[in-house]
């Protein structure tokens, strides 16, 4: 398959590199602002003002309030966030030409459903007296609202971005719950390795904090209820951690084969060396207590990257701050990395940006590559009460300078989804 001219990995597959990145989170817009805040240990979590939170157990989140979507609905904000991240990534990559990206689009988007404001608007349009139901809504719909049809299709956001950026082929919208952003990257890596594409645009986006979304996670007891102060709620790896904090954001990565990137003289930001995955068959929201799916996922990522555990310098943790996740992630890391786990730093971006859900894997992959480039590890903030059961170096509270040559970034999600990425500095 390959004569090795430096463009192929040890398994004879095209090496995949990153040449552009864009980030939006509750900490700000763009790589620079985000990195500055992230390494200053700043939190983007605040009280929610987008909708009334009266009577709710959780009233905080990492909403991105400086980006508008009017009227608000999750796919509209998710689209705007993705758009910002993509334009920043393409600008950095200097790839293709305006409206003509030379490869496919893989985008992790939050699940889409019509939301309450639109239901209410449709119902009111019929001027009903008395009880309304879905027949009322269907009668209103029959008058024709193609705008709402297009808005609430699962594929709508991807189609809009595919039009705007001229990506090639059918855009793939995907969901693997909280691992989605990493899955988008994994699919892009696989497409380039197959030789199907020289470049791919991979995106994770999530702008879905509205009342029902918050309540649904709350009903599953997944969210932190320590609302005051908001910036102290996300406490990954702490003994008093009590759940994750919902947040919004987006990140886009331009992936290319090393050969393609070098041929056009692109600046290489890092290498996507490997992706690993294993599904858990234990429970819809919990990992098997023996940790075998997480362990299998981490091992698969190392195997795919062709590296040994002690070649990893840092782990960008899934680190949600739920009692369950952090315990299981620690077990997985200790099992796979053995003695090296005690020396290797592991920190959670979510302590500052919250859990950006569908976007998390992509956002944290971008931060992982910046960690390598900048030689500085973002901290796990709010680490005041260590959990004696988690004996890892979580880079407590303050960023740390360190030479980081290779990062593993973990993403785990409901439905037994586990994906880990291995990223490294540009090859010599």
């Amino acid at each position, binding site marked *: *398959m*390959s004569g090795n001219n430096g463009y192929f990995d040890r398994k004879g597959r095209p090496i995949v590199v990153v040449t552009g990145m864009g980030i939006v989170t509750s900490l700000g817009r763009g790589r620079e602002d985000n990195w500055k805040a992230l390494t200053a240990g700043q939190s983007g979590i605040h009280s929610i003002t987008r909708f*009334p939170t*009266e*009577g709710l157990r959780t009233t905080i989140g990492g909403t991105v309030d400086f980006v508008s979507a009017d009227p608000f609905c999750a796919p509209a904000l998710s689209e705007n966030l993705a758009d910002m991240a993509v334009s920043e990534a393409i600008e950095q990559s200097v790839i293709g030409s305006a409206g003509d990206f030379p490869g496919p689009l893989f985008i992790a*988007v939050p*699940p*889409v*459903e*019509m939301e*309450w404001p639109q*239901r*209410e608007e449709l119902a009111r349009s019929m001027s*009903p007296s008395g*009880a309304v*139901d*879905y*027949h009322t*809504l269907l009668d209103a*719909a*029959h008058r*024709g*609202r*193609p705008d709402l*049809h297009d808005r*609430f*299709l*699962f*594929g709508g956001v991807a*189609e809009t971005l595919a039009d705007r950026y001229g990506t090639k*082929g*059918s*855009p*793939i*919208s995907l*969901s*693997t*719950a909280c691992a*989605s952003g990493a899955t988008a990257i994994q699919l892009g890596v*696989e497409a380039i*390795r*197959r*030789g*199907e594409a020289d470049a791919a645009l991979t995106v994770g986006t999530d702008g879905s904090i509205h009342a*029902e979304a918050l*309540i649904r996670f709350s*009903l*599953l007891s997944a969210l932190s209820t320590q609302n005051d102060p908001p910036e102290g709620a996300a406490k990954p790896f702490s003994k008093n951690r009590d759940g994750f904090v919902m947040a919004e954001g987006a990140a886009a990565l331009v992936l290319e*084969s090393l*050969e*393609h990137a070098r041929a056009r003289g692109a600046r290489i930001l890092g290498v996507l060396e490997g992706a690993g*995955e*294993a*599904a858990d*068959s234990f429970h*819809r929201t919990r990992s098997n207590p023996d940790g075998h799916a997480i362990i299998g996922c981490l091992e698969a990522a190392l195997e795919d990257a062709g590296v040994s555990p002690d070649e990893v310098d840092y782990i960008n943790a899934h680190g949600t701050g739920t009692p369950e996740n952090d315990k299981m992630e620690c077990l997985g890391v200790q099992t796979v990395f053995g003695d090296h786990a005690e020396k290797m730093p592991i920190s959670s971006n979510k302590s500052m940006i919250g859990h950006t859900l569908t976007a998390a894997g992509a956002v944290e992959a971008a931060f992982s590559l910046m960690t390598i480039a900048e030689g500085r590890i973002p901290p796990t903030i709010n680490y005041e009460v260590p959990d004696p059961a988690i004996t890892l170096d979580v880079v407590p509270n303050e960023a740390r300078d360190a030479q980081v040559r290779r990062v593993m970034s973990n993403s785990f999600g*409901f*439905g*037994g*989804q586990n994906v880990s990425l291995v990223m490294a500095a540009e090859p010599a």
Partner: protein
Amino acid sequence: MSAAPHRQVLITGIGLASSLGEGLDAHWTALTAPDGPKPVIDTEHFAPYPVHPMAELALDTQIPRRGDQRQMEPWQRIGTYAAGLALDNAGIKDQPEILERTDMIVSAGGGERDIAVDSAILTDLLTTNDPGKLLNERLSNDLRPTLFLAQLPNLLAGNISIVHKVTGSSRTFMGEEAAGIDAVRTAHARVASRQSEICLVGGSYNAERLDMLLLFELGNYLWREDWLPVWDRLSRGGGMVTGSMGAFLILESAEHAESRGGKAIASLDAVMSDRCKRETGAATAVARGQLEKIRPQLGSGKTALLTGATGAEPISGEERAFLESLVAENDDIAVRAVGSVIGHGLEAQFPVLVALAALTASRGKLYPALDSTGLEVDSGAAVDRVLVNLWGHWRGEGMALVSPAG
């Protein structure tokens, strides 16, 4: 760019459930009934919208734990059931060593809601002075906590992992018809390029939902009159009739199938997906391009063409003209609109089309026409291969080629 060498991809298992029944034999029997296929249509429960209801499924046979069944909404049950049928059909149902490295790609929608809760909240929302407070209170109290999980697209894959122990990998594609096309295309490409040895791919759709109909009625895509076959609707404005369905395929390399004694039902020779903005003629141009790529594999002999035409206009009229031009160029092509017999199933439609294509290829003949407009023609000639064509109701164009095994 170095394209990886491609190898043959076999379909070694199929799980199929629709209004016509469950399994390949039941579908073949219904499709080839002596007086022609008889669609099953529910015209009452969702009037004025006819839908094709799911046949009664013996859920316990594929989802033995009632607790698991309760954790799913119907679309997840249909999909988990069909996935189990596919694993059974491939002979790997009880082979943990294979299941734990079997890859999975699911095309999913989701979002089945609690219609009663929604209606009650909406009624009160229109008269309250404090809508924010009301919404918070009522959603917190009235939503069933686990309903969320039954609505999440990736929880169909999650349920398949839990119930059937398929855990090699798990990806869920969303995005209506295109999700189904890309799921099958990606699974095919992964096996063809040696990224995967064996992959479970498919999707499911539950048409018996007012909330699902709502989305398509917003765009006025639905047929609201007495049921007619797809092509017969076009002269009367067109419209889509949705159908409950689920289909999963086991795609496998020949080497892997041989090593475990698996048998091929058919060969999946090509899968293509693309998009356009649906300007007049754009989908035709996409499909022409796809056909040119497939043409070297077509050879001579009789080709059956199964289309997923929805019946919605103007796109189904454009597709009809495209298909007529194919038939005019080559009278060895015989067309069938699968939507006429089982309806349209969005994310599930492409996997269902490929499943029916494999069934047709394996039986070597085509089921009788169901069309009074003259596009579908009966012929007793043996079928040598089956083309699949699907244009989504809004976006997404896919094509596949299926040939008999061996």
